[in-house]
C-alpha cells in the first residue's frame, strides 16, 4: 500500500480521511513495514465498508488485514440500527464463528516428548480432518435444532465436555437469539456428518509449548507459565456455516437494491438490521455460531480422550474460546455527543478477534481483572500468541485485535515452492510433528507461506489493541 495515501495519526494508526461517499473515515492499525506490505485492496475495501449505511466512527482494519470479500479480512465495523445500520453476510465471512480455543494440560515438555509420536498418531487417528472426512456423530432433525440453539452448552449436556468449560467460552457457550428455523435444509444437510470434524485449509489442532512470557502477572491469571504445554484448536462452523454464508450473500445481494442501498461492490451485500432479511440472517448466523461452539466442544472432548489414554495425569481445563468471524450486539461508548453515552451496536469482526479489556462484565470472572484472552494462531512451523484485551481497545476499534498471521503468498505459489514431504521432514528435524491426510495441503500451508505472526502481534500490542502475554510454539500439529 502506498502510505502517502494515508494520514498518519500516530506511529501505529493510519487514517484514510472521509471522502466521496464515505460516511466515516477508515483507520488501519499497523507499523510502517506492515503498512507498506499490505495489499492495496485493503485500502479499497476499508473505504467501501465506510460507505455502508449506519456505520459508526470508522471502518477499521487490523495489522494482519488482507484482501477479503467486500470487507477486508482483519476488518472491524460497527453499525447502529437507530441510524439505518446494516448487517452483512460478507462482513462475517463464510466460515461463521471460525475461532480459536486453548486448553491447559498441566504438563511440561518433559512429560510430552517421550510420547510425542504416539500423541501425534493418536490425535490424527481420533480427530477427523481433511476433505471428505466425517465425524462419528449423526444428528437427527430435532437434535440438529437443539445443537443450533444450544451451542457448546448442548454439547456438554450430551456428555462432550464439562460444565466448567462453558464459563470459558464467549456467550457462556451458547449464543442467544439463534433461530434454527432460519437455517436451510441444505445447510443442515451439509452439516449432517461434519460434527466434530476439524476441516481443512488453515484449520488445525496443535499441542504447543509456552516458550516466552511477556506479562507474568496476566499470564499467571490466565494460568500460563513458561514451559507449559497447551492444546490449541482452530476451526469454525463447518459446512453449515459455509452454506448459510453462501445463501445469505445471494439474498442480500438481491435485497440491497430493494432496500435502496447502493453497493460500491456486490460482495458488500447487506440488509438493514431492522429488515426481514437482516433479522433472518442474524438468527441463522447465531445458529452457526452455536454450531462452531458445539464443534470445538466436541473436538475438545476427543482431545481429552486421547490425553486420558496416553498421559492420564493430564487434566485439560479450558483457558478460553474466542471466535474471529462474527457479528455481535455489544454496548459501546462512542464519541458522538448526542448519543447519550452507551449505544447498542452490531459489531462485525471478519478475521478480527474481540478483545474486551479488564473489568468487562462479559469476561469470565477468574480472568476479568486481566482482560479477555485473545488467541492468535500462527502457521504450523512458527508460533501462536496469547494476548489480553486492553481498556484502550474500546476507543481504538470497539475492543478488537488481530486474528492471525495472514498469507504471504497464494496457495499456487506455495505449491510451486515446496513439497509437502520436505515440509514435514524439515519440521520433524525441529521436533515439530505434522500429521495430515494431504501432502499437497501441507505444502500449501508451509510456514513460509505465511507472514510473520510476531510482527502482527507486536503491532497490535504497540497500537494498544491488545497486550502481548505469551508465545506458544508447536510440538504436534494435526492439519486438515
Amino acid at each position: 500500500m502506498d502510505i502517502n495515501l494515508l494520514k498518519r495519526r500516530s506511529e501505529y494508526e493510519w487514517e484514510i480521511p472521509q471522502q466521496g461517499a464515505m460516511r466515516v473515515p477508515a483507520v488501519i492499525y499497523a507499523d510502517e513495514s506492515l503498512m507498506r506490505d499490505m495489499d492495496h485492496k485493503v485500502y479499497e475495501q476499508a473505504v467501501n465498508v465506510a460507505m455502508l449505511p449506519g456505520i459508526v466512527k470508522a471502518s477499521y482494519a487490523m495489522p494482519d488485514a488482507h484482501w477479503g470479500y467486500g470487507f477486508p479480512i482483519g476488518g472491524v465495523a460497527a453499525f447502529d440500527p437507530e441510524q439505518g445500520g446494516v448487517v452483512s453476510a460478507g462482513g462475517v465471512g463464510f466460515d461463521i464463528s471460525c475461532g480459536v480455543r486453548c486448553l491447559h494440560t498441566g504438563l511440561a515438555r518433559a512429560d510430552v516428548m517421550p510420547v510425542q509420536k504416539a500423541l501425534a498418531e493418536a490425535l490424527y487417528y481420533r480427530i477427523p480432518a481433511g476433505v471428505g472426512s466425517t465425524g462419528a456423530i449423526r444428528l437427527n432433525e430435532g437434535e440438529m435444532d437443539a445443537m443450533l440453539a444450544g451451542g457448546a452448552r448442548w454439547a456438554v449436556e450430551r456428555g462432550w465436555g464439562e460444565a466448567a468449560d462453558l464459563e470459558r467460552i464467549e456467550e457462556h457457550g451458547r449464543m442467544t437469539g439463534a433461530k434454527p428455523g432460519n437455517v436451510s435444509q441444505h445447510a443442515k444437510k451439509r452439516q449432517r456428518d461434519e460434527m466434530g470434524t476439524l476441516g481443512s485449509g488453515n484449520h488445525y489442532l496443535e499441542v504447543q509449548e509456552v516458550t516466552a512470557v511477556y506479562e507474568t502477572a496476566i499470564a499467571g491469571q490466565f494460568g500460563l507459565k513458561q514451559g507449559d504445554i497447551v492444546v490449541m484448536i482452530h476451526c469454525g462452523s463447518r459446512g453449515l456455516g459455509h452454506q448459510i454464508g453462501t445463501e445469505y450473500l445471494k439474498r442480500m445481494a438481491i435485497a440491497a437494491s430493494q432496500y435502496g442501498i447502493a453497493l460500491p461492490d456486490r460482495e458488500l451485500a447487506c440488509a438493514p438490521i431492522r429488515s426481514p432479511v437482516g433479522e433472518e440472517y442474524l438468527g441463522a448466523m447465531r445458529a452457526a455460531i452455536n454450531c462452531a461452539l458445539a464443534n470445538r466442544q466436541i473436538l475438545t472432548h476427543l482431545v481429552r480422550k486421547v490425553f486420558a489414554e496416553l498421559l492420564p495425569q493430564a487434566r485439560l481445563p479450558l483457558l478460553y474460546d474466542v471466535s474471529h468471524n462474527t457479528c455481535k450486539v455489544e454496548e459501546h461508548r462512542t464519541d458522538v455527543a448526542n448519543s447519550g453515552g452507551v449505544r447498542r451496536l452490531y459489531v462485525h469482526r471478519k478475521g478480527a478477534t474481540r478483545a474486551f479489556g479488564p473489568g468487562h462484565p462479559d469476561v469470565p470472572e477468574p480472568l476479568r481483572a486481566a482482560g479477555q484472552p485473545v488467541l492468535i494462531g500462527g502457521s504450523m512451523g512458527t508460533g501462536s500468541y496469547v494476548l489480553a484485551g486492553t481498556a484502550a481497545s474500546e476507543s481504538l476499534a470497539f475492543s478488537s485485535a488481530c486474528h492471525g498471521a495472514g498469507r504471504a503468498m497464494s496457495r499456487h505459489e506455495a505449491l510451486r515452492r515446496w513439497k509437502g514431504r520436505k515440509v514435514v521432514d524439515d519440521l520433524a528435524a525441529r521436533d515439530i510433528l505434522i500429521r495430515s491426510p494431504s501432502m499437497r495441503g501441507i505444502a500449501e500451508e508451509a510456514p513460509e507461506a505465511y507472514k510473520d505472526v510476531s510482527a502482527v502481534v507486536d503491532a497490535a500490542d504497540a497500537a494498544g489493541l491488545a497486550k502481548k502475554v505469551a508465545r506458544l510454539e508447536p510440538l504436534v500439529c494435526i492439519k486438515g
Partner: protein
Amino acid sequence: MGARWEHFEHGADVGVRGFGASKAEAFEQAALALTAVIAEPATVEAREAVAIECEAPDDELLLAEWLNALIYEMATRKMLFSRFEVRMDGTRLSAEAHGEPVDVARHHPAVEAKGATYTALRVAREGGEWVAQTVVDV
C-alpha cells in the same frame, strides 16, 4: 485458445477462471478450475453423474450459484467432479457433473472449498470467447 481454465491470484484464497467458445463452455471450465483448487482433475474419474439445476437473476450471480451448487454436491456427497455438461437457458442452468467419491489416497485433496464469492466475479465475452471467473473461499 479454446476451452481452458486457469487460477488467478487472490491474497488468501484462489481465483477460478474458465474460457470457452460459449458461455456454457466457460462455466464448465470454471467448474474444472474449482475442482483443481481441491485436487488434480486428471486423478478424478468420471464414474457417476449428478444432475444440477440452478437459477439467478444475471450471468454473474448464476456463475456463483453454479459453483456453489457444485460445492454443495461435493460436500454432501463427498465427491469430486472432473467432467461437466452445462446447458444454459437465459437465467436458468441445468447440468450434469461427472465424478467419483473422494479417495484421499489417490486424490490427495488439499483443501475444501467453502463457497464461491462475488469477488472479481465476472462473466463476459472477450475477443471472440467467453470468460467466467470468481474467487473461491477455501
